[in-house]
C-alpha cells in the first residue's frame, strides 16, 4: 500500500515534468488570427525607446486587428545570430546585414517572399543594386532592404573642445586625423583614435580604411573571386594604424575593441574618434546614454584612385519556418515598421512623431535604398521632428552623396573579416608585426575557402 502510494506520487511527478517539457511547444493559432514575433530593439535600450516601439506595435495592431505582434530584443552579432539560426529560435521577422543575405539565401535559410513583395506598390522602385542584396541567383526575393548607411568618422565634440580643437572643423584628410588624434591623446590623456579589432569588426573596419585609399579586399572576375587582402590600400591603412599606435601612442590601451565595446567607450567619452556606420547615433543614444550635444559625424577622407566609402545596410527577412499566413503578416509588418516611413507622408510623420515624443533619434544620417530624391522627400516630411543635431552631422551629409560608395567583399566575408582581425590585432599589439607576411597568409587562407566553395 505504502509502495503504491509512493509510485502514485512519483508517477504524478514524472507526468508533471514531461507535461512541463511538452508545454514548451508553440500553441497553434486558430480563427484566422495570426501571431507573429518580430525583433524590437537591442538589449539595454532605454525604456522610452521600448515605449516608442510598443506604441508602433499598437498602431499596427489597430490597423491589422487579425495580427498580434510579439516582440523580442535583438542585437545582430555574428556568434549570437549563428546560434539563434541553428537553434531555430529566431523570430518570424529579423534583420541581417547586407553581407549575409546572399549566403543565407543560397543555404535555404530564408523564406521566399517574392509574391508578397511584388504585391507592394513600391516593389519596382528599389535601387536594383540595393534590392539585389536580398535576391537569390534565381531572382526571387527573400527580404526587403530597410536601411543603408555609409561609414563615417565619428568624433566626440566635447573631447575636441577639451583638446583645444574646433569641433566644427573636423579633420578632412587622414594626416589631419592623425594630427588631431595625437593632440587629443597628449592633451586629454584619452584615446585619440580607436580601431575595432575583434569579433570580425577588425576586418570590417580595415575594409573601410582600405576602401578610402582605393583598396579592395576581393576582386570578382566573371564567376571567380580573388582575395586581394594584400592590396596597397590595406597595407597603407595598416601602416597608418601602426604609426598612430607606436609612433604617436594616440590609440589608447585597448586593442581588442569590437562594435559593442567601442560604442560603449565612445559613449562614455573615452574615445576622440573612430570609424563606423553613419547610423550609429541611434545606438549611442539608446544604449550608451551619450549626450547628443557631444556627437559629431564627418565624412571619411578619400585618398587616391578608386577611393570610396564602404557602405552597408540592413535587410528585414522572414523565418524559413514561417507558415504562409505568418509570412503574409510578417511582410505587412516589415512594410509598416520599416518601409512606409520612407515612402508615405502620413506614415513618416506618425513614425517621427512617435519617436520624438519618446525622445528617440529622428533623422539619423542614412543612404537611400530607393533613390536620393525619395530619401530627401522623406526627410522633408519629418523635418519638424528631426532631433539629431543636423549641424553636427552636416560634415558627413554634405559630402556623402558626392563620394563613391563601395560594397563589402562578397565571398566568405565573415571568414575574411575574422582573418583580418588577427592582422589588425597584431599591428596594434606588436611593433614588429610583419604586415606583408600577415596579409599574404590571409590571402592564402581565405582563397582556399573561396575555392572550396
Amino acid at each position, binding site marked *: 500500500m*505504502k*509502495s*503504491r502510494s*509512493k*509510485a502514485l506520487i*512519483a*508517477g504524478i*511527478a*514524472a507526468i508533471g*515534468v*514531461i507535461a512541463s*517539457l511538452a508545454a514548451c511547444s508553440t500553441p497553434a493559432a486558430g480563427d484566422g488570427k495570426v501571431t507573429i514575433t518580430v525583433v524590437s530593439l537591442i538589449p539595454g535600450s532605454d525604456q522610452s525607446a521600448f515605449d516608442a516601439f510598443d506604441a508602433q506595435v499598437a498602431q499596427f495592431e489597430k490597423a491589422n486587428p487579425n495580427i498580434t505582434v510579439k516582440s523580442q530584443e535583438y542585437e*545582430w*552579432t*555574428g*556568434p*549570437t*545570430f*549563428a*546560434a539563434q*539560426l*541553428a*537553434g*531555430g529560435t529566431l523570430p518570424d521577422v529579423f534583420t*541581417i546585414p547586407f553581407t*549575409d543575405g546572399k*549566403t*543565407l539565401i543560397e*543555404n*535555404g*535559410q530564408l523564406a521566399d517572399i517574392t509574391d508578397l513583395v511584388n504585391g507592394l506598390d513600391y516593389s519596382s522602385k528599389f535601387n536594383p543594386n540595393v534590392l539585389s542584396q536580398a535576391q537569390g541567383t534565381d531572382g526571387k526575393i527573400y527580404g526587403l532592404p530597410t536601411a543603408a548607411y555609409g561609414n563615417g568618422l565619428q568624433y566626440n565634440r566635447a573631447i575636441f573642445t577639451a583638446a583645444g580643437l574646433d569641433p566644427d572643423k573636423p579633420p578632412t584628410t587622414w594626416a589631419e586625423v592623425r594630427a588631431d588624434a595625437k593632440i587629443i591623446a597628449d592633451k586629454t*590623456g584619452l584615446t585619440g583614435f580607436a580601431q575595432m*579589432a*575583434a*569579433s*570580425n569588426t577588425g576586418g570590417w573596419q580595415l575594409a573601410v580604411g582600405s576602401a578610402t585609399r582605393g583598396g579592395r579586399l576581393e576582386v570578382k572576375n566573371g564567376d571567380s573571386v580573388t582575395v586581394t587582402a594584400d592590396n596597397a590600400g590595406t597595407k597603407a591603412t595598416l601602416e597608418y594604424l601602426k604609426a598612430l599606435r607606436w609612433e604617436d601612442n594616440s590609440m*589608447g*590601451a*585597448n*586593442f*581588442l575593441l*569590437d562594435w559593442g565595446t567601442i560604442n560603449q567607450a565612445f559613449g562614455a567619452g573615452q574615445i576622440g574618434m573612430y570609424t563606423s556606420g553613419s547610423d550609429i547615433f541611434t545606438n549611442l543614444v539608446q544604449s550608451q546614454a551619450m549626450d547628443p550635444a557631444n556627437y559629431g559625424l564627418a565624412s571619411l577622407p578619400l585618398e587616391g584612385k578608386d577611393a570610396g566609402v564602404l557602405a552597408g545596410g540592413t535587410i528585414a527577412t522572414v523565418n*524559413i519556418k514561417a507558415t504562409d499566413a505568418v509570412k503574409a503578416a510578417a511582410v505587412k509588418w516589415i512594410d509598416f515598421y520599416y518601409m512606409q516611413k520612407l515612402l508615405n507622408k502620413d506614415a513618416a510623420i506618425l513614425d517621427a512623431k512617435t519617436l520624438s515624443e519618446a525622445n528617440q533619434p529622428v533623422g539619423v544620417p542614412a543612404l537611400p535604398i530607393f533613390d536620393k530624391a525619395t530619401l530627401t522627400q522623406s526627410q522633408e516630411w519629418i523635418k519638424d521632428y528631426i532631433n539629431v543635431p543636423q549641424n553636427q552631422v552636416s560634415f558627413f551629409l554634405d559630402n556623402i552623396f558626392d563620394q563613391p560608395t563601395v560594397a563589402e567583399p562578397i565571398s566568405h566575408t*565573415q*571568414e575574411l573579416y*575574422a582573418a583580418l*582581425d*588577427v*592582422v589588425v*590585432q*597584431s599591428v*596594434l*599589439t*606588436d611593433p614588429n*608585426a610583419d604586415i606583408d607576411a600577415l596579409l599574404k597568409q590571409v590571402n592564402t587562407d581565405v582563397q582556399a575557402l573561396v575555392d572550396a566553395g
Partner: protein
Amino acid sequence: MTTVETPPIIDLAAASAAASPQRVIVQRTRKRNFGTWVRGGGVSNLVFLLPMLVIFGAFSWYPIVQALVMSFQKTNLVTPAIFVGWDNFARVLHDPNLYVAIQNTGYFALLALIFGYPVPLVAAVLMSEVRRGKGLFSALAYLPVVVPPVVAVLLWKFFYDGRPEGVFNTILGWVGIPPQPWIQNAIEAMPSLVLEATWAAAGGTVIIYLAALTSVPPELYDAAEVDGASIWQKIWHVTLPQLRGVLIITLILQIIGTSQVFLEPFLFTGGGPANATITILLLIYRYAFQNSLGGNYGAATALSVMLALFLAALSLIYFQLTKRWSS
C-alpha cells in the same frame, strides 16, 4: 599442500550435473528477488528516477550521441544533414589554428599547474597552522568562488586596464614598475588569464585541502615532533603523504579543467591578441559560431569528440600510473 595447489581436472559432465541444482536455486532466487523487488518498492523507485532519466536523457545523453553523429555530418542545422565520413576530422587536423590552440591550451595548463596548483596547497597548510581566525581565512579564500565567473572576469578586465592609471598599473607604479599592457599583449595575455583563473578557482581547492588536513591523525605530528622534526619536515613527511589521495584527484581535475579552458580567453580577449590566447574550446566555439551564416558544426563536434577521447585516455593512463601510489 601440493594437492591444493594442483590445478583441478575439470570433468564437464560432472560439473554440469553438479551445477544444475545450483542453477535451479539461482533461478528461484531471481524470481523471488524480482517479486521482492516489485513488492519492496522497486517500481516506485524507478518511477521516481524517471524524471531524472528523462531530463538527463534529453539534455545530456541525447546531445552527446547527437554530437557524435554530427561529427560525421555536414549540417547547418536547418537544411538536411549530409554524411561526409571523416572529412570533418581531416579538416580540423589540417587547420593551422588547431596547433596554435593546442599549444596555447598546453601553455595555460602548464602555467596553471606551476602557479595555480601549489597555491591552494600552501594556503591550506598555512591556514591549518594558524590558531585564531581560521574561519575568517577560509571565508576570505572561498570568497572569489562565490563571485559569478563572468562578473569576476569583467572586474579583472577593469583591473587589467593597460593605461598607466589602470588599477594594477597604479599599484605597480608605487613600486617603480612601468605600466604593463596585460591582456593587450601577446606575451603577457596568457599569464594574465592564468592569474585570474587561479584567483577564481583556488578557494574551492583550499576548502578541499583543509577538509583533508583535518583527517590527518594528530599522533603522526606528535610522533614527528618527538623525533625532532622541523615544521618543513612535518609537512614533507607527514602532511603531503597523507594528502596524496586528494592531491592526485585535484591534479587530474585541474588538468581536465585547464584543457577545457574557455571562459577566461572568451571573455577577456576573444582569443586575441592575434590568436595568442585561442584555446581548443574557443576554437570549437569559433568553428560553430564565428560565422553568422551558420557555423561548421561538423568540425566543431569533430574537435569536441577528439578532445573528449584525449581527456578520457589521459585520465585512464594517469589513474593506471598512479594506482599503486594512491592505494
